[in-house]
């Protein structure tokens, strides 16, 4: 176990090193343009400053870029989190249904839904959602993270928590207001995520259903749902989680596009606004923040996978 940990951290540090190189190159290119003999020492001073969390200061509002970026990105994470919950609640059962009864009506219906969900361009769906107040009279908020009525001081950076910290002033109103602002963007993102999860779940379930131990379970006289509950789910989960891990960056990508349509103050909006105002320093900061997050979370997911799936534990011993 310890060896495995070391090995992962070793791999992580190499990837992180490449990322800092990329970020440095980008910053150099966008800001200084000249690459001279001192590039090497420049890089080390750059590395030194980013380790201290100093990414420079925005030319727009003179705020430290790193802080702004972190707060923005944590909003994106909130969005992704909610979308994930919705997607798992809807997508998992549908995927299981489709995977169990392959190639019949239920399967085709569910897979058609999944295909539609994948083929709809998210920013377009987001636009359609923003005209809902006009078309259907739904009064769900379509802009921003929270109503400007509420003044929320930044404490943790996560608005969900920060809005709970001001309960003595607004009771739960601020928190609820933030939640309602999350509904439409996360629903749009969930549309894509759900279809992705349906596909992954269906694929994983089919794979498991084909395996011999499920046949054996049939011969044990277990009912269908007993089999699904006792044998299929636990074995299907690791590949699903693994695939989702690989798609983290795609999901964040889509979340950023959605944010821009809904003016949701997340990483996407932050980048978009900054680039439009010519503040290119944010690019390398965003690269390091987002990729760093994906890197670390993928390692955490790897660990969880090893913990929940015994057959993967083999790799603990097998690998070097």
């Amino acid at each position, binding site marked *: 176990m310890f060896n495995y940990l070391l090995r992962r951290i070793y791999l992580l540090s190499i*990837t992180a090193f*490449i*990322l800092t190189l990329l970020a440095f190159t980008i910053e150099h290119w966008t800001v200084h343009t000249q690459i001279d003999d001192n590039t090497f020492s420049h890089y080390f001073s750059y590395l030194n400053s980013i380790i201290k969390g100093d990414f420079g200061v925005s030319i727009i509002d003179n705020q430290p870029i790193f802080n702004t970026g972190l707060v923005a990105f944590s909003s994106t994470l909130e969005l992704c989190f909610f979308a994930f919950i919705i997607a798992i609640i809807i997508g998992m059962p549908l995927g299981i249904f489709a995977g169990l009864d392959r190639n019949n009506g239920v399967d085709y219906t569910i897979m058609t839904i999944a295909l539609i969900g994948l083929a709809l*361009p998210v920013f*377009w769906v987001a636009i*359609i959602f923003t*005209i809902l107040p006009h078309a259907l009279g739904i009064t769900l908020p379509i802009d921003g993270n929270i109503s400007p009525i509420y003044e929320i001081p930044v404490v943790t950076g996560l608005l969900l928590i920060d809005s709970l910290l001001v309960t003595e002033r607004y009771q739960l109103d601020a928190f609820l207001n933030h939640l309602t602002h999350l509904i439409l963007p996360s629903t749009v993102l969930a549309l894509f995520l759900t279809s992705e999860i349906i596909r992954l779940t269906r694929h994983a379930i089919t794979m498991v259903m084909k395996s011999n131990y499920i046949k054996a379970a049939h011969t044990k006289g277990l009912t269908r749902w007993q089999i699904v509950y006792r044998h299929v789910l636990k074995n299907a989960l690791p590949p699903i989680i693994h695939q989702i891990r690989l798609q983290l960056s795609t999901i964040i990508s889509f979340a*950023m596009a959605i944010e821009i349509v809904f003016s949701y103050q997340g990483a996407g909006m932050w980048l978009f606004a900054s680039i439009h105002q010519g503040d290119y320093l944010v690019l390398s900061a965003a690269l390091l923040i987002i*990729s760093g997050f994906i890197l670390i979370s993928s390692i955490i997911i790897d660990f969880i996978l090893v913990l929940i799936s015994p057959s993967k534990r083999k790799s603990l011993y097998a690998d070097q």
Partner: protein
Amino acid sequence: MLINNEFNEQKIQSPLRYIWLIFKSKNIAVVAMWAIITLLMVTLFTPYIMPYSPTLQHPDMLLLPPYWAEGANPAHLLGTDDLGRDTLSRLLKGIQLTLAGALSITLVISMLGLLIGATAALTQGVKASIMHHLLDALLTIPTILTALILIVLFGMSYENSLLAISLSLLPQFIRGIYISIENELNKQHIIALRLDGARNLRLLRFGIFPNILEPLVTLLTRIFTMAILEITTLGFLGFGANANEIELGALISKSLELVYLSPYLVLFPGVAIFLIIIVFNVFAEGVRHAIIEGEE
């Protein structure tokens, strides 16, 4: 005495023919195939089938609705925009730009990706390891961020956005190809081929390539889908095409202001994107199934 090879030679069809046979039996996939052919024709012959020039203004016919709605003019099947330009023509032009862009991206990526992926899978040592780590790092960057970075570095234009999207999708494809080749390499028949003294190229051509068709189709579909989505997203955000190039995403963003007055202008390009992706996915799914069934 009967001849030994009596059965074996009975019309064993070539794998491609067999796949085609199975594919033909899937009605939806065949419909999708015809739709794709139509789309490709539209892309190739856009200038000839457009009823009007996409920039031609009809000042006396502003914001006409499509032909089924009240107050429509049959001369403009899908109506006109706020400058009296024909929506159908603009839509066709947009489909041409977007589809051509996505197809060329897919083509470039598949060639480069196959080359790099195969090289990475078949070589060991430092080269492969550098490759591996670089891919690992690139894969953690969200595609839209990569595209934004590249556009900022190279400047905004349609060609640059295509370049940016290609570069942002390439790592995914390489990784996919790499994994499928790696999986295949561990199989017995490759070892057998190796023992026969096959060189890498022969290994690829006869041992690996025929067996990774299915993941290849899946990967290509995914790349194509993502390419369409990203071209339109960048166009929508205003980073892609410039003012004169009407790509589907840019078409949406330009009509956004008119969404209350003439929602069709926003709806049509979105539906067009949706249909392109659906059609290609259904087709690919058909091909994939045919390949799987053919292998069984």
